[in-house]
């Protein structure tokens, strides 16, 4: 075992996919000699040739649409949008073609395209470099949307995304690129569509994903040390398909739920999670499902981003509002809770 960064895990996943399947192509801006602005494609052009790891013109709709044409010829394009907000020019191609082509053609033309998007903030980025854009993609039928929070998931989910016959929007939290884990690659974790319980707890479920998983785990440690709350942390990993079963089992066990998302809260992924939890676990809940999200503002300038980002204090303050004086009705809890 050796310490492996999230970025290195992604690079290795791309490398292994290129090695194993000649139909896999990597396309994007600066993915060639430079190795991408975050170095995720480092060395791929050198080792696989500029024919397999391809620098494209600087036009995101063009990149996405070009991938559609290649997918029609049986290729598996992996395209990189350099930053979240720079993916917006490709929106029409993603939503109207990549997402819908299988449906329009009664499955005759599937779109095995992976769209990698470095997203979210916490890195001191200037405007248009820190958006949490997942809400636009999860709202679009036909797309899978995944967001790994650990180096092992970064590798495993990317391999699975590339092998998928459906388009996958692969959202990489930039703040986690240099997170490390003891890891041997290749590795395989839970499949797309399955959430993971990152920390077991008895009192409250913190449902989160992507860049906020690390914050959730830190908050859980503080909560245990200072408040005597035993927080369970569920990392969704996959936003579409959504793992209702794991979330539901956890909330039925703890009786309280907080949804944590970095994105602005209004009508976002966090709202969907909160709605699903109350629809499914109403009688197990001792308190309303609360959300901790980014503010409903355009992503702030670097010196103000700490005000916007859900931090440990805001998470703990929210947990504190879960009506702790009332006892939850746990008679609806599952008979056996898997470890």
């Amino acid at each position, binding site marked *: 075992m050796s310490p492996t960064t999230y970025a290195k895990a992604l690079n290795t996943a791309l490398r292994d996919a290129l090695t194993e399947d000649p139909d896999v192509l990597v396309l994007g801006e600066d993915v060639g000699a430079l190795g991408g602005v975050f170095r995720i494609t480092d060395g791929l052009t050198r080792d696989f040739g500029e024919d397999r790891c391809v620098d494209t013109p600087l036009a995101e709709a063009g990149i996405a649409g070009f991938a559609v044409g290649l997918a*029609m010829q049986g290729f598996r394009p992996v395209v990189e949008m350099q930053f979240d907000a720079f993916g917006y020019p490709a929106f029409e191609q993603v939503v109207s073609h990549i997402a819908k082509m299988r449906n329009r053609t009664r499955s005759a033309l599937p779109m095995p395209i992976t769209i990698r998007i470095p997203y979210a903030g916490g890195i001191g980025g200037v405007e248009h470099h820190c958006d949490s854009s997942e809400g636009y993609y999860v709202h679009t039928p036909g797309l899978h949307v995944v967001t790994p929070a650990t180096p092992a998931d970064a590798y495993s989910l990317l391999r699975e995304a590339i092998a998928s016959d459906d388009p996958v929007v692969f959202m990489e939290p930039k703040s986690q690129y240099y997170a490390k884990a003891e890891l041997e690659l290749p590795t395989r974790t839970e499949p797309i569509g399955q959430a993971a319980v990152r920390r077991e707890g008895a009192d409250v479920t913190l449902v989160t994903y992507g860049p906020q998983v690390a914050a959730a785990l830190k908050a859980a440690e503080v909560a245990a040390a200072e408040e005597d709350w035993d927080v369970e942390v569920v990392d969704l990993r996959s936003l579409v398909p959504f793992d209702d079963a794991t979330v539901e089992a956890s909330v039925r066990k703890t009786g309280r739920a907080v949804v944590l998302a970095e994105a602005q809260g209004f009508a976002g992924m966090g709202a969907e999670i909160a709605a699903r939890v109350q629809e499914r676990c109403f009688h197990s809940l001792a308190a309303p499902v609360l959300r901790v999200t980014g503010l409903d503002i355009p992503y702030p300038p670097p010196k103000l981003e700490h005000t916007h980002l859900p931090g440990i204090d805001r998470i703990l303050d929210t947990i504190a509002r879960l009506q702790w004086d009332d006892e939850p009705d746990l008679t609806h809890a599952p008979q056996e809770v898997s470890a």
Partner: protein
Amino acid sequence: MSDITELLPCPEPVQLLAADGSAVDPGEQARARGYAMPAPEDLLAVWRGMVVGRRFDAQATALTKQGRLAVYPSSRGQDACQVAPVLALDEQDWLFPTYRDSMALVTHGIDPVEVLTLLRGDWHCGYDPRATRTAPQCTPLATQAVHAAGAAHGLTRRGTDGIALCLIGDGATSEGDFHEGLNFAAVFEAPAVFLVQNNKYAISVPLAKQTKAPALAYKGVGYGVRSEQVDGNDPAAMLAVMREAYAHARSGHGPVLVEAHTYRMEAHTNADDATRYRTADEVDEWTGQDPIVRLQAYLVQQGHLDDHRIQEVRDEADDLAADLRTRMNAEPTVEPLELFDHVYDRPTPQLLEQREMVRSELDSHVTQQEMESAR
């Protein structure tokens, strides 16, 4: 960098047949590019395709008036642009059509009922794109330009000499994807041919409000794309120019942009009122440019076509229309549960729940009907 004179279109739209059907000299640059009068059998095939295609188009318009189609965008008047480029394709080539290119799809050999599935409304794309090597008809504007560039590049990567033909309208040349498609195709030297059917209107907006370019064909030059303009109502010139464009792309010289100057004789669709934005005089003027009349006159003059053959092809076209009428008058069956079959390779748990809800609604509906009929 290419020599710019190699990229520039001919100064005037290439013409081989005048409106009265007489052969004309296309000019020095056109001759140098190899545009010559095609062989009689090729022209006869284009003529036949146009007669059948126009009959199909008229039948589809009639079906719309009868309520069988939700809407139909006619391509009458653009018949030469619809037929000659498609007939010149090879078997391994791919076609990227828009909603106005139904006639081109019928010419391509796709079952007319499958062509009209989109507009009848029982599914989106009615034909199998892989089997027919034809992308779904594109209703978002110009997005198919980048698909064609990618597909053309893919055909080359696969080691074939296939090309991609992208059909596009004059209005869509204002869209960003048109430019990105041209640029990507050029940078990757992809064998894509972009045919702009400049029918003078984007629904109601005339070309003058769309561009200040001297001709749309000049838009290729900035991308290093070989460009050409042609009289889109001259079937002989259309065939000659497209063949040369395909040969250029197929031989690894990169994409070609062709602008065909033509005219949309009908309104945008049956739901449009063209009298609000163009004059009857203008339409009359273009009636005199009819591509079928023009080619038929030439073929008759040259002794390649007689009344007997003309009648034969008209009968063939009527038969196709009658068959289409009969089949389109049968109410299509739709299966609500199929809505869940093609969203993903495997439906998500959430879709399975919704499918179950719809299934039970359908079951209870059937039970209710059975009870009512039992009474």
